[in-house]
Protein backbone atom coordinates (compact mmCIF):
# COMPACT_ATOMS: atom_id res chain seq x y z
CA UNK A 1 0.00 0.00 0.00
CA UNK A 2 1.44 3.34 -1.08
CA UNK A 3 2.04 6.06 1.46
CA UNK A 4 -0.81 8.60 1.54
CA UNK A 5 0.11 12.27 1.83
CA UNK A 6 -1.70 15.59 1.70
CA UNK A 7 -0.14 17.70 -1.06
CA UNK A 8 -1.02 20.84 0.85
CA UNK A 9 0.90 19.69 3.92
CA UNK A 10 3.96 19.35 1.71
CA UNK A 11 3.20 22.74 0.17
CA UNK A 12 3.08 24.47 3.56
CA UNK A 13 6.31 22.82 4.68
CA UNK A 14 8.07 23.73 1.43
CA UNK A 15 6.99 27.35 1.79
CA UNK A 16 8.64 27.47 5.20
CA UNK A 17 11.80 26.00 3.68
CA UNK A 18 11.81 28.67 0.93
CA UNK A 19 11.02 31.39 3.44
CA UNK A 20 14.11 30.46 5.43
CA UNK A 21 16.28 30.58 2.32
CA UNK A 22 15.01 33.81 0.84
CA UNK A 23 13.54 36.86 2.51
CA UNK A 24 11.83 37.93 -0.70
CA UNK A 25 9.30 35.12 -0.40
CA UNK A 26 5.93 36.57 0.55
CA UNK A 27 2.75 34.53 1.04
CA UNK A 28 -0.85 35.67 0.66
CA UNK A 29 -4.04 33.83 1.52
CA UNK A 30 -7.75 34.63 1.50
CA UNK A 31 -9.07 33.28 4.79
CA UNK A 32 -8.21 29.67 3.99
CA UNK A 33 -4.72 29.45 5.41
CA UNK A 34 -5.66 26.60 7.75
CA UNK A 35 -6.85 24.56 4.76
CA UNK A 36 -4.22 25.59 2.22
CA UNK A 37 -1.53 25.21 4.91
CA UNK A 38 0.02 28.60 4.24
CA UNK A 39 -0.53 29.11 7.97
CA UNK A 40 2.71 27.17 8.49
CA UNK A 41 4.56 29.98 6.72
CA UNK A 42 2.48 32.58 8.55
CA UNK A 43 3.46 31.12 11.91
CA UNK A 44 7.17 31.33 11.15
CA UNK A 45 7.21 34.57 9.13
CA UNK A 46 4.22 36.63 10.28
CA UNK A 47 5.65 39.83 8.79
CA UNK A 48 5.78 38.26 5.33
CA UNK A 49 2.37 36.63 5.48
CA UNK A 50 -0.76 38.58 4.61
CA UNK A 51 -4.27 37.31 5.11
CA UNK A 52 -6.53 39.22 2.74
CA UNK A 53 -9.79 37.92 4.11
CA UNK A 54 -12.45 36.71 1.72
CA UNK A 55 -11.34 39.01 -1.11
CA UNK A 56 -9.54 37.09 -3.84
CA UNK A 57 -9.57 39.82 -6.48
CA UNK A 58 -7.76 42.22 -4.20
CA UNK A 59 -5.32 39.50 -3.18
CA UNK A 60 -4.37 38.67 -6.78
CA UNK A 61 -3.85 42.27 -7.84
CA UNK A 62 -1.95 43.08 -4.64
CA UNK A 63 0.28 40.06 -5.36
CA UNK A 64 1.13 41.74 -8.66
CA UNK A 65 2.00 44.96 -6.83
CA UNK A 66 4.29 43.10 -4.44
CA UNK A 67 5.93 41.27 -7.33
CA UNK A 68 6.50 44.57 -9.16
CA UNK A 69 8.77 45.48 -6.24
CA UNK A 70 10.83 42.31 -6.49
CA UNK A 71 8.95 39.93 -4.21
CA UNK A 72 8.31 36.30 -5.11
CA UNK A 73 4.70 35.97 -4.13
CA UNK A 74 2.91 32.71 -3.37
CA UNK A 75 -0.85 33.15 -3.37
CA UNK A 76 -3.22 30.50 -2.12
CA UNK A 77 -6.90 29.84 -1.89
CA UNK A 78 -9.20 27.11 -3.18
CA UNK A 79 -8.92 26.39 -6.91
CA UNK A 80 -12.51 27.52 -7.47
CA UNK A 81 -11.76 31.04 -6.27
CA UNK A 82 -8.16 31.27 -7.47
CA UNK A 83 -9.09 30.49 -11.05
CA UNK A 84 -12.63 31.77 -11.39
CA UNK A 85 -13.28 34.57 -8.96
CA UNK A 86 -10.18 36.54 -9.80
CA UNK A 87 -9.59 35.56 -13.43
CA UNK A 88 -9.37 39.11 -14.75
CA UNK A 89 -6.83 40.05 -12.07
CA UNK A 90 -4.80 36.94 -12.89
CA UNK A 91 -4.98 37.63 -16.62
CA UNK A 92 -4.51 41.39 -16.78
CA UNK A 93 -2.44 42.19 -13.74
CA UNK A 94 -0.36 39.08 -13.03
CA UNK A 95 0.15 37.37 -16.40
CA UNK A 96 0.13 40.37 -18.73
CA UNK A 97 2.90 41.87 -16.60
CA UNK A 98 4.64 38.48 -16.39
CA UNK A 99 5.14 38.87 -12.66
CA UNK A 100 6.62 36.37 -10.20
CA UNK A 101 3.31 35.35 -8.72
CA UNK A 102 2.86 31.67 -7.95
CA UNK A 103 -0.78 30.77 -7.51
CA UNK A 104 -0.99 27.56 -5.55
CA UNK A 105 -4.62 26.48 -5.62
CA UNK A 106 -5.75 23.73 -3.32
CA UNK A 107 -9.01 21.75 -3.11
CA UNK A 108 -9.18 21.33 -6.88
CA UNK A 109 -11.39 18.86 -8.69
CA UNK A 110 -14.25 16.64 -7.74
CA UNK A 111 -12.40 14.99 -4.85
CA UNK A 112 -13.17 18.08 -2.77
CA UNK A 113 -16.08 15.80 -1.98
CA UNK A 114 -18.70 16.68 0.58
CA UNK A 115 -18.68 20.46 -0.02
CA UNK A 116 -20.37 19.82 -3.33
CA UNK A 117 -20.43 21.42 -6.77
CA UNK A 118 -19.94 25.06 -5.74
CA UNK A 119 -16.51 24.16 -4.39
CA UNK A 120 -15.43 21.60 -6.98
CA UNK A 121 -13.23 23.42 -9.49
CA UNK A 122 -13.30 21.29 -12.62
CA UNK A 123 -12.79 24.13 -15.09
CA UNK A 124 -9.68 25.72 -13.59
CA UNK A 125 -7.13 24.15 -15.93
CA UNK A 126 -9.11 25.45 -18.91
CA UNK A 127 -9.23 28.93 -17.40
CA UNK A 128 -5.54 29.07 -16.56
CA UNK A 129 -4.16 27.23 -19.56
CA UNK A 130 -5.33 29.85 -22.03
CA UNK A 131 -3.42 32.79 -20.54
CA UNK A 132 -0.08 33.75 -22.13
CA UNK A 133 2.98 33.66 -19.80
CA UNK A 134 1.19 31.35 -17.34
CA UNK A 135 2.75 28.02 -16.45
CA UNK A 136 0.29 25.37 -15.34
CA UNK A 137 1.38 22.40 -13.24
CA UNK A 138 -0.56 19.58 -11.60
CA UNK A 139 1.65 17.50 -9.29
CA UNK A 140 0.68 13.86 -8.95
CA UNK A 141 1.51 13.36 -5.27
CA UNK A 142 3.08 14.83 -2.14
CA UNK A 143 6.77 14.49 -3.01
CA UNK A 144 6.27 15.88 -6.50
CA UNK A 145 4.46 18.85 -4.97
CA UNK A 146 7.65 19.84 -3.17
CA UNK A 147 9.68 19.68 -6.38
CA UNK A 148 7.07 21.73 -8.23
CA UNK A 149 6.97 24.45 -5.58
CA UNK A 150 10.75 24.75 -5.53
CA UNK A 151 10.85 24.86 -9.34
CA UNK A 152 8.18 27.57 -9.38
CA UNK A 153 10.23 29.60 -6.93
CA UNK A 154 13.30 29.28 -9.14
CA UNK A 155 11.51 29.94 -12.44
CA UNK A 156 10.57 33.52 -13.31
CA UNK A 157 6.99 34.39 -14.16
CA UNK A 158 3.51 33.34 -13.09
CA UNK A 159 2.45 29.79 -12.21
CA UNK A 160 -0.82 28.07 -11.52
CA UNK A 161 -0.19 24.98 -9.41
CA UNK A 162 -3.15 22.73 -8.76
CA UNK A 163 -3.32 20.68 -5.57
CA UNK A 164 -6.01 18.41 -4.18
CA UNK A 165 -7.81 18.31 -0.90
CA UNK A 166 -7.56 14.63 -0.06
CA UNK A 167 -4.53 12.49 0.61
CA UNK A 168 -2.78 11.32 -2.56
CA UNK A 169 -0.97 7.98 -2.78
CA UNK A 170 2.75 8.53 -3.33
CA UNK A 171 3.88 7.39 -6.77
CA UNK A 172 6.98 5.24 -6.46
CA UNK A 173 9.77 5.09 -9.04
CA UNK A 174 8.92 8.48 -10.44
CA UNK A 175 11.61 10.45 -12.31
CA UNK A 176 12.45 13.82 -10.74
CA UNK A 177 10.10 16.63 -11.76
CA UNK A 178 11.25 18.72 -14.69
CA UNK A 179 9.06 21.63 -15.75
CA UNK A 180 7.62 21.06 -19.22
CA UNK A 181 9.08 17.57 -19.54
CA UNK A 182 6.59 14.73 -19.29
CA UNK A 183 7.57 11.99 -16.93
CA UNK A 184 7.26 8.52 -18.39
CA UNK A 185 6.30 6.09 -15.63
CA UNK A 186 5.96 2.85 -17.55
CA UNK A 187 7.13 1.78 -20.97
CA UNK A 188 4.46 0.28 -23.22
CA UNK A 189 3.83 -0.38 -26.87
CA UNK A 190 0.09 -0.67 -27.47
CA UNK A 191 -1.65 2.20 -25.75
CA UNK A 192 -0.62 5.45 -24.07
CA UNK A 193 -2.20 6.69 -20.87
CA UNK A 194 -1.57 10.34 -20.12
CA UNK A 195 -2.68 11.54 -16.71
CA UNK A 196 -2.19 14.33 -14.23
CA UNK A 197 -2.84 14.84 -10.54
CA UNK A 198 -4.60 12.13 -8.59
CA UNK A 199 -5.42 10.22 -11.76
CA UNK A 200 -1.76 9.32 -12.21
CA UNK A 201 -2.19 6.72 -9.46
CA UNK A 202 -5.34 5.46 -11.12
CA UNK A 203 -3.46 5.23 -14.41
CA UNK A 204 -0.78 3.11 -12.75
CA UNK A 205 -3.44 0.78 -11.35
CA UNK A 206 -4.90 0.55 -14.85
CA UNK A 207 -1.46 -0.31 -16.16
CA UNK A 208 -1.27 -3.31 -13.81
CA UNK A 209 -4.73 -4.51 -14.82
CA UNK A 210 -3.95 -4.14 -18.50
CA UNK A 211 -0.69 -6.01 -18.03
CA UNK A 212 -2.60 -8.94 -16.59
CA UNK A 213 -4.68 -8.90 -19.76
CA UNK A 214 -1.51 -8.78 -21.88
CA UNK A 215 -2.00 -5.20 -22.98
CA UNK A 216 1.13 -3.11 -22.90
CA UNK A 217 0.52 0.47 -21.77
CA UNK A 218 2.81 3.45 -21.55
CA UNK A 219 1.84 5.64 -18.59
CA UNK A 220 2.83 9.29 -18.70
CA UNK A 221 2.57 11.71 -15.82
CA UNK A 222 1.83 14.94 -17.68
CA UNK A 223 2.35 17.20 -14.68
CA UNK A 224 2.97 20.30 -16.80
CA UNK A 225 0.05 21.41 -18.95
CA UNK A 226 1.80 24.58 -19.99
CA UNK A 227 4.41 24.58 -21.45
CA UNK A 228 3.23 21.23 -22.76
CA UNK A 229 5.71 18.51 -23.74
CA UNK A 230 4.39 18.11 -27.26
CA UNK A 231 7.34 15.99 -28.39
CA UNK A 232 6.50 13.21 -25.96
CA UNK A 233 2.84 13.33 -26.98
CA UNK A 234 3.69 13.12 -30.69
CA UNK A 235 6.02 10.18 -30.06
CA UNK A 236 3.31 8.34 -28.14
CA UNK A 237 0.78 9.09 -30.85
CA UNK A 238 3.19 7.54 -33.35
CA UNK A 239 4.29 4.57 -31.28
CA UNK A 240 1.00 3.34 -29.84
CA UNK A 241 -2.52 2.79 -31.17
CA UNK A 242 -4.04 5.65 -29.28
CA UNK A 243 -4.09 7.74 -26.14
CA UNK A 244 -6.28 7.75 -23.05
CA UNK A 245 -6.16 11.09 -21.24
CA UNK A 246 -7.16 11.10 -17.58
CA UNK A 247 -7.84 14.18 -15.51
CA UNK A 248 -10.03 15.29 -12.65
CA UNK A 249 -11.36 18.07 -14.84
CA UNK A 250 -14.14 18.98 -17.25
CA UNK A 251 -13.92 17.55 -20.73
CA UNK A 252 -13.50 21.02 -22.21
CA UNK A 253 -10.23 22.87 -22.01
CA UNK A 254 -8.05 20.74 -19.75
CA UNK A 255 -5.33 18.18 -20.35
CA UNK A 256 -7.38 16.15 -22.83
CA UNK A 257 -7.91 19.21 -25.00
CA UNK A 258 -4.24 20.09 -24.71
CA UNK A 259 -3.34 16.61 -25.99
CA UNK A 260 -5.95 16.89 -28.77
CA UNK A 261 -4.44 20.16 -29.92
CA UNK A 262 -1.06 18.50 -30.35
CA UNK A 263 -2.12 15.23 -31.99
CA UNK A 264 -4.63 16.85 -34.36
CA UNK A 265 -1.90 18.98 -35.81
CA UNK A 266 0.96 16.52 -35.75
CA UNK A 267 -0.20 12.92 -35.78
CA UNK A 268 -3.98 12.37 -35.66
CA UNK A 269 -4.87 9.36 -33.57
CA UNK A 270 -7.61 8.18 -31.23
CA UNK A 271 -7.78 10.18 -28.01
CA UNK A 272 -10.20 8.83 -25.40
CA UNK A 273 -11.08 10.88 -22.38
CA UNK A 274 -11.44 9.87 -18.79
CA UNK A 275 -12.70 13.16 -17.40
CA UNK A 276 -15.94 14.88 -16.43
CA UNK A 277 -18.49 15.14 -19.19
CA UNK A 278 -20.34 18.46 -19.16
CA UNK A 279 -21.73 18.12 -15.65
CA UNK A 280 -21.37 19.83 -12.31
CA UNK A 281 -20.23 17.79 -9.35
CA UNK A 282 -22.20 17.05 -6.18
CA UNK A 283 -21.69 16.11 -2.57
CA UNK A 284 -20.26 12.77 -1.64
CA UNK A 285 -17.03 11.17 -0.57
CA UNK A 286 -14.07 11.58 -2.91
CA UNK A 287 -14.11 7.84 -3.56
CA UNK A 288 -17.81 7.77 -4.36
CA UNK A 289 -17.48 10.74 -6.71
CA UNK A 290 -14.54 9.25 -8.60
CA UNK A 291 -16.78 6.24 -9.10
CA UNK A 292 -19.82 8.27 -10.13
CA UNK A 293 -17.95 10.42 -12.64
CA UNK A 294 -16.08 7.48 -14.15
CA UNK A 295 -12.62 8.51 -13.10
CA UNK A 296 -11.40 5.13 -11.79
CA UNK A 297 -8.75 2.79 -13.05
CA UNK A 298 -11.52 0.54 -14.39
CA UNK A 299 -12.68 3.40 -16.61
CA UNK A 300 -9.14 3.87 -17.87
CA UNK A 301 -8.84 0.14 -18.55
CA UNK A 302 -12.10 0.19 -20.52
CA UNK A 303 -10.94 3.14 -22.62
CA UNK A 304 -7.54 1.55 -23.25
CA UNK A 305 -9.16 -1.70 -24.34
CA UNK A 306 -11.41 0.12 -26.81
CA UNK A 307 -8.34 1.69 -28.31
CA UNK A 308 -6.53 -1.60 -28.79
CA UNK A 309 -9.74 -3.13 -30.15
CA UNK A 310 -10.66 -5.46 -27.33
Amino acid at each position, binding site marked *: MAEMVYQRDIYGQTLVELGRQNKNV*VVLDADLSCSTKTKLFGAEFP*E*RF*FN*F*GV*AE*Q*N*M*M*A*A*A*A*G*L*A*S*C*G*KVVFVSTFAMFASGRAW*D*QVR*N*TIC*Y*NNFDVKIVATHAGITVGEDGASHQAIEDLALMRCIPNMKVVVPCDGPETREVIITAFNTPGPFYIRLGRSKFPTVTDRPPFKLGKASILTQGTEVTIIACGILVSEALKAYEDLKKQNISAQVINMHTLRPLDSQTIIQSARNTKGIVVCEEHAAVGGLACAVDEIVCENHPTKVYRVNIKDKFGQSGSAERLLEEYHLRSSDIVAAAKSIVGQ
Partner: protein
Amino acid sequence: MVAKKVNELKEKAKQMRRLIIEMLAKAGSGHPGGSLSSTDIIATLYFHVLRHRPKEPNWPDRDRFHLSKGHCCPALYAALALSGYFDIKELFTLRQFGSLLQGHPDRRTPGVEVASGSLGQGLSVALGMSLAGKLDEKDYRVYCLLGDGECQEGNIWEAAMAAAHFQCDNLCAILDYNEVQIDGRVSEIMDLEPLREKWVSFGWYVIQTDGHNFEKLINAFEEAKTVKIKPTIIIAKTVKGKGVSFMENVVDFHGRAPNENERKKALEELK
Protein backbone atom coordinates in the same frame (compact mmCIF):
# COMPACT_ATOMS: atom_id res chain seq x y z
CA MET B 1 8.36 80.17 -3.69
CA VAL B 2 4.94 78.56 -3.89
CA ALA B 3 3.84 81.07 -6.52
CA LYS B 4 6.86 80.21 -8.62
CA LYS B 5 6.13 76.49 -8.30
CA VAL B 6 2.49 77.02 -9.18
CA ASN B 7 3.44 78.95 -12.30
CA GLU B 8 5.86 76.25 -13.29
CA LEU B 9 3.18 73.57 -12.83
CA LYS B 10 0.66 75.63 -14.80
CA GLU B 11 3.11 75.80 -17.67
CA LYS B 12 3.80 72.03 -17.52
CA ALA B 13 0.10 71.25 -17.38
CA LYS B 14 -0.53 73.42 -20.42
CA GLN B 15 2.22 71.63 -22.34
CA MET B 16 0.72 68.31 -21.26
CA ARG B 17 -2.75 69.31 -22.43
CA ARG B 18 -1.43 70.39 -25.82
CA LEU B 19 0.42 67.10 -26.16
CA ILE B 20 -2.67 65.14 -25.11
CA ILE B 21 -4.77 66.83 -27.81
CA GLU B 22 -2.09 66.35 -30.43
CA MET B 23 -1.34 62.73 -29.66
CA LEU B 24 -5.02 61.77 -29.50
CA ALA B 25 -5.79 63.57 -32.76
CA LYS B 26 -2.88 61.75 -34.38
CA ALA B 27 -3.97 58.41 -32.91
CA GLY B 28 -7.57 58.93 -34.01
CA SER B 29 -8.91 57.25 -30.90
CA GLY B 30 -8.48 57.39 -27.13
CA HIS B 31 -9.81 59.18 -24.08
CA PRO B 32 -9.45 62.96 -23.90
CA GLY B 33 -12.03 63.69 -21.16
CA GLY B 34 -10.36 61.91 -18.27
CA SER B 35 -6.86 62.65 -19.54
CA LEU B 36 -7.62 66.36 -19.32
CA SER B 37 -9.40 66.11 -15.97
CA SER B 38 -6.41 64.34 -14.43
CA THR B 39 -3.70 66.48 -16.08
CA ASP B 40 -3.21 68.90 -13.19
CA ILE B 41 -3.02 66.06 -10.65
CA ILE B 42 -0.47 64.18 -12.75
CA ALA B 43 1.52 67.37 -13.39
CA THR B 44 1.67 68.07 -9.66
CA LEU B 45 2.90 64.54 -9.04
CA TYR B 46 5.53 64.32 -11.76
CA PHE B 47 6.85 67.88 -11.51
CA HIS B 48 6.67 68.40 -7.78
CA VAL B 49 5.69 65.49 -5.54
CA LEU B 50 7.33 62.34 -6.87
CA ARG B 51 10.86 61.37 -5.94
CA HIS B 52 12.03 59.83 -9.19
CA ARG B 53 14.88 59.61 -11.66
CA PRO B 54 13.58 59.61 -15.24
CA LYS B 55 16.91 58.33 -16.57
CA GLU B 56 16.87 55.51 -14.04
CA PRO B 57 13.26 54.26 -14.09
CA ASN B 58 14.06 51.23 -11.91
CA TRP B 59 15.81 53.20 -9.15
CA PRO B 60 14.82 51.12 -6.10
CA ASP B 61 14.05 54.13 -3.90
CA ARG B 62 11.72 55.85 -6.34
CA ASP B 63 8.20 56.76 -5.32
CA ARG B 64 5.73 54.56 -7.16
CA PHE B 65 2.92 55.94 -9.29
CA HIS B 66 0.24 53.66 -10.63
CA LEU B 67 -2.46 54.85 -13.02
CA SER B 68 -5.44 52.72 -12.10
CA LYS B 69 -7.66 54.53 -14.60
CA GLY B 70 -5.44 53.28 -17.40
CA HIS B 71 -7.47 54.80 -20.23
CA CYS B 72 -6.16 58.23 -19.22
CA CYS B 73 -2.61 57.24 -20.15
CA PRO B 74 -2.19 60.14 -22.61
CA ALA B 75 -1.81 62.39 -19.57
CA LEU B 76 0.70 59.99 -18.02
CA TYR B 77 2.62 59.62 -21.29
CA ALA B 78 2.83 63.40 -21.66
CA ALA B 79 4.19 63.72 -18.10
CA LEU B 80 6.69 60.91 -18.65
CA ALA B 81 7.92 62.42 -21.91
CA LEU B 82 8.23 65.91 -20.43
CA SER B 83 10.09 64.40 -17.45
CA GLY B 84 12.58 62.78 -19.81
CA TYR B 85 11.64 59.09 -19.57
CA PHE B 86 11.54 58.94 -23.37
CA ASP B 87 11.57 61.26 -26.35
CA ILE B 88 8.56 63.50 -26.88
CA LYS B 89 8.27 62.34 -30.47
CA GLU B 90 7.22 58.90 -29.17
CA LEU B 91 3.94 60.51 -28.12
CA PHE B 92 2.87 60.74 -31.73
CA THR B 93 3.06 56.98 -32.15
CA LEU B 94 0.38 56.45 -29.48
CA ARG B 95 -1.86 53.44 -30.21
CA GLN B 96 -0.03 52.58 -33.42
CA PHE B 97 1.35 49.15 -34.18
CA GLY B 98 4.78 48.66 -32.64
CA SER B 99 4.53 51.79 -30.48
CA LEU B 100 6.19 52.15 -27.12
CA LEU B 101 2.89 53.71 -26.06
CA GLN B 102 0.05 51.21 -26.01
CA GLY B 103 -3.61 52.18 -25.87
CA HIS B 104 -3.54 51.40 -22.17
CA PRO B 105 -0.41 51.41 -19.97
CA ASP B 106 2.04 48.59 -20.54
CA ARG B 107 5.42 47.89 -18.99
CA ARG B 108 7.21 48.32 -22.31
CA THR B 109 6.93 52.07 -21.62
CA PRO B 110 9.75 53.43 -19.45
CA GLY B 111 8.20 54.73 -16.25
CA VAL B 112 5.15 52.44 -16.30
CA GLU B 113 5.39 50.21 -13.23
CA VAL B 114 2.46 47.88 -13.87
CA ALA B 115 0.05 47.59 -16.79
CA SER B 116 -3.48 48.78 -16.24
CA GLY B 117 -6.67 49.18 -18.19
CA SER B 118 -9.06 46.70 -16.65
CA LEU B 119 -10.62 48.99 -14.08
CA GLY B 120 -10.78 48.56 -10.34
CA GLN B 121 -7.49 46.73 -9.84
CA GLY B 122 -5.04 49.59 -9.44
CA LEU B 123 -5.61 50.30 -5.79
CA SER B 124 -4.79 46.66 -5.04
CA VAL B 125 -1.61 46.94 -7.08
CA ALA B 126 -0.65 50.06 -5.12
CA LEU B 127 -1.45 48.25 -1.90
CA GLY B 128 0.99 45.51 -2.90
CA MET B 129 3.66 48.13 -3.61
CA SER B 130 2.99 49.72 -0.26
CA LEU B 131 3.37 46.41 1.57
CA ALA B 132 6.62 45.72 -0.30
CA GLY B 133 7.98 49.12 0.70
CA LYS B 134 7.21 48.43 4.33
CA LEU B 135 8.75 44.95 4.18
CA ASP B 136 11.91 46.37 2.63
CA GLU B 137 11.95 49.25 5.11
CA LYS B 138 12.05 51.71 2.23
CA ASP B 139 10.73 55.21 2.68
CA TYR B 140 9.27 55.54 -0.81
CA ARG B 141 5.63 56.52 -1.14
CA VAL B 142 3.03 54.97 -3.39
CA TYR B 143 0.57 57.09 -5.37
CA CYS B 144 -2.41 55.69 -7.20
CA LEU B 145 -4.77 57.66 -9.43
CA LEU B 146 -8.33 56.35 -9.43
CA GLY B 147 -11.26 57.25 -11.63
CA ASP B 148 -14.69 57.84 -10.20
CA GLY B 149 -16.41 55.37 -12.52
CA GLU B 150 -14.06 52.61 -11.47
CA CYS B 151 -15.06 53.07 -7.84
CA GLN B 152 -18.17 51.17 -8.87
CA GLU B 153 -15.96 48.06 -9.01
CA GLY B 154 -16.05 45.88 -5.92
CA ASN B 155 -12.32 45.30 -6.13
CA ILE B 156 -11.72 48.97 -5.20
CA TRP B 157 -13.50 48.50 -1.90
CA GLU B 158 -11.73 45.23 -1.16
CA ALA B 159 -8.48 47.15 -1.59
CA ALA B 160 -9.76 50.08 0.47
CA MET B 161 -10.59 47.76 3.34
CA ALA B 162 -7.23 46.01 3.17
CA ALA B 163 -5.09 49.15 2.88
CA ALA B 164 -6.61 50.49 6.08
CA HIS B 165 -6.31 47.09 7.76
CA PHE B 166 -2.62 46.84 6.89
CA GLN B 167 -2.10 50.48 7.97
CA CYS B 168 -0.63 51.53 4.64
CA ASP B 169 0.30 55.09 5.55
CA ASN B 170 2.83 55.19 2.72
CA LEU B 171 -0.08 54.94 0.28
CA CYS B 172 -1.86 57.95 -1.16
CA ALA B 173 -4.74 57.49 -3.58
CA ILE B 174 -6.07 60.37 -5.63
CA LEU B 175 -9.59 60.27 -6.98
CA ASP B 176 -10.13 62.17 -10.21
CA TYR B 177 -13.72 63.07 -9.42
CA ASN B 178 -14.93 64.45 -12.73
CA GLU B 179 -18.41 63.00 -12.25
CA VAL B 180 -18.72 61.69 -15.80
CA GLN B 181 -18.37 58.14 -17.11
CA ILE B 182 -18.87 56.60 -20.54
CA ASP B 183 -22.62 56.22 -20.38
CA GLY B 184 -23.35 59.53 -18.66
CA ARG B 185 -23.11 61.27 -15.33
CA VAL B 186 -21.82 59.12 -12.48
CA SER B 187 -24.69 60.20 -10.23
CA GLU B 188 -27.17 58.88 -12.78
CA ILE B 189 -25.38 55.70 -13.84
CA MET B 190 -24.42 54.47 -10.36
CA ASP B 191 -24.13 57.12 -7.70
CA LEU B 192 -21.01 57.02 -5.51
CA GLU B 193 -22.17 59.47 -2.87
CA PRO B 194 -21.66 59.92 -0.03
CA LEU B 195 -18.11 59.38 -1.13
CA ARG B 196 -16.19 61.07 1.68
CA GLU B 197 -18.17 59.10 4.25
CA LYS B 198 -17.51 55.86 2.42
CA TRP B 199 -13.74 56.31 2.52
CA VAL B 200 -13.80 57.57 6.10
CA SER B 201 -15.81 54.56 7.18
CA PHE B 202 -13.32 52.29 5.41
CA GLY B 203 -10.60 53.73 7.65
CA TRP B 204 -8.96 56.23 5.30
CA TYR B 205 -7.77 59.75 5.94
CA VAL B 206 -9.72 61.85 3.46
CA ILE B 207 -8.70 65.18 1.94
CA GLN B 208 -11.14 66.92 -0.38
CA THR B 209 -9.75 69.48 -2.74
CA ASP B 210 -9.96 71.20 -6.08
CA GLY B 211 -8.12 69.02 -8.58
CA HIS B 212 -7.27 72.00 -10.77
CA ASN B 213 -5.80 74.26 -8.07
CA PHE B 214 -2.06 73.61 -7.85
CA GLU B 215 -1.55 75.30 -4.52
CA LYS B 216 -4.29 73.20 -2.97
CA LEU B 217 -2.99 70.05 -4.63
CA ILE B 218 0.53 70.70 -3.34
CA ASN B 219 -0.84 71.24 0.16
CA ALA B 220 -2.98 68.10 -0.04
CA PHE B 221 0.03 65.96 -0.98
CA GLU B 222 2.06 67.54 1.82
CA GLU B 223 -0.73 66.86 4.31
CA ALA B 224 -0.96 63.25 3.14
CA LYS B 225 2.72 62.72 3.94
CA THR B 226 2.11 63.62 7.57
CA VAL B 227 -0.65 61.05 8.09
CA LYS B 228 0.37 58.08 10.20
CA ILE B 229 -1.24 54.62 10.40
CA LYS B 230 -3.96 55.39 7.85
CA PRO B 231 -3.80 55.48 4.06
CA THR B 232 -4.87 58.77 2.52
CA ILE B 233 -7.21 59.53 -0.34
CA ILE B 234 -7.31 62.94 -1.97
CA ILE B 235 -10.76 63.35 -3.47
CA ALA B 236 -9.97 65.88 -6.16
CA LYS B 237 -12.96 67.57 -7.72
CA THR B 238 -12.22 67.96 -11.39
CA VAL B 239 -13.88 68.84 -14.66
CA LYS B 240 -13.97 66.25 -17.40
CA GLY B 241 -12.22 67.64 -20.46
CA LYS B 242 -10.74 70.51 -18.42
CA GLY B 243 -9.02 73.21 -20.43
CA VAL B 244 -10.84 72.75 -23.72
CA SER B 245 -14.17 74.56 -23.57
CA PHE B 246 -16.07 72.31 -25.95
CA MET B 247 -14.87 69.16 -24.19
CA GLU B 248 -15.65 70.25 -20.65
CA ASN B 249 -18.36 68.09 -19.07
CA VAL B 250 -19.20 66.60 -22.46
CA VAL B 251 -19.86 62.89 -22.07
CA ASP B 252 -19.00 62.19 -25.71
CA PHE B 253 -15.37 63.15 -25.15
CA HIS B 254 -14.85 60.41 -22.58
CA GLY B 255 -13.71 58.14 -25.35
CA ARG B 256 -13.60 60.05 -28.62
CA ALA B 257 -10.49 61.66 -30.06
CA PRO B 258 -10.64 65.18 -31.49
CA ASN B 259 -10.95 65.48 -35.26
CA GLU B 260 -8.79 67.93 -37.22
CA ASN B 261 -11.06 70.93 -36.60
CA GLU B 262 -11.40 70.12 -32.94
CA ARG B 263 -7.67 69.68 -32.65
CA LYS B 264 -7.05 73.15 -34.06
CA LYS B 265 -9.72 74.74 -31.89
CA ALA B 266 -8.40 73.02 -28.78
CA LEU B 267 -4.81 74.03 -29.42
CA GLU B 268 -5.98 77.59 -30.03
CA GLU B 269 -7.54 77.58 -26.56
CA LEU B 270 -4.43 76.06 -24.98
CA LYS B 271 -2.02 78.75 -26.11
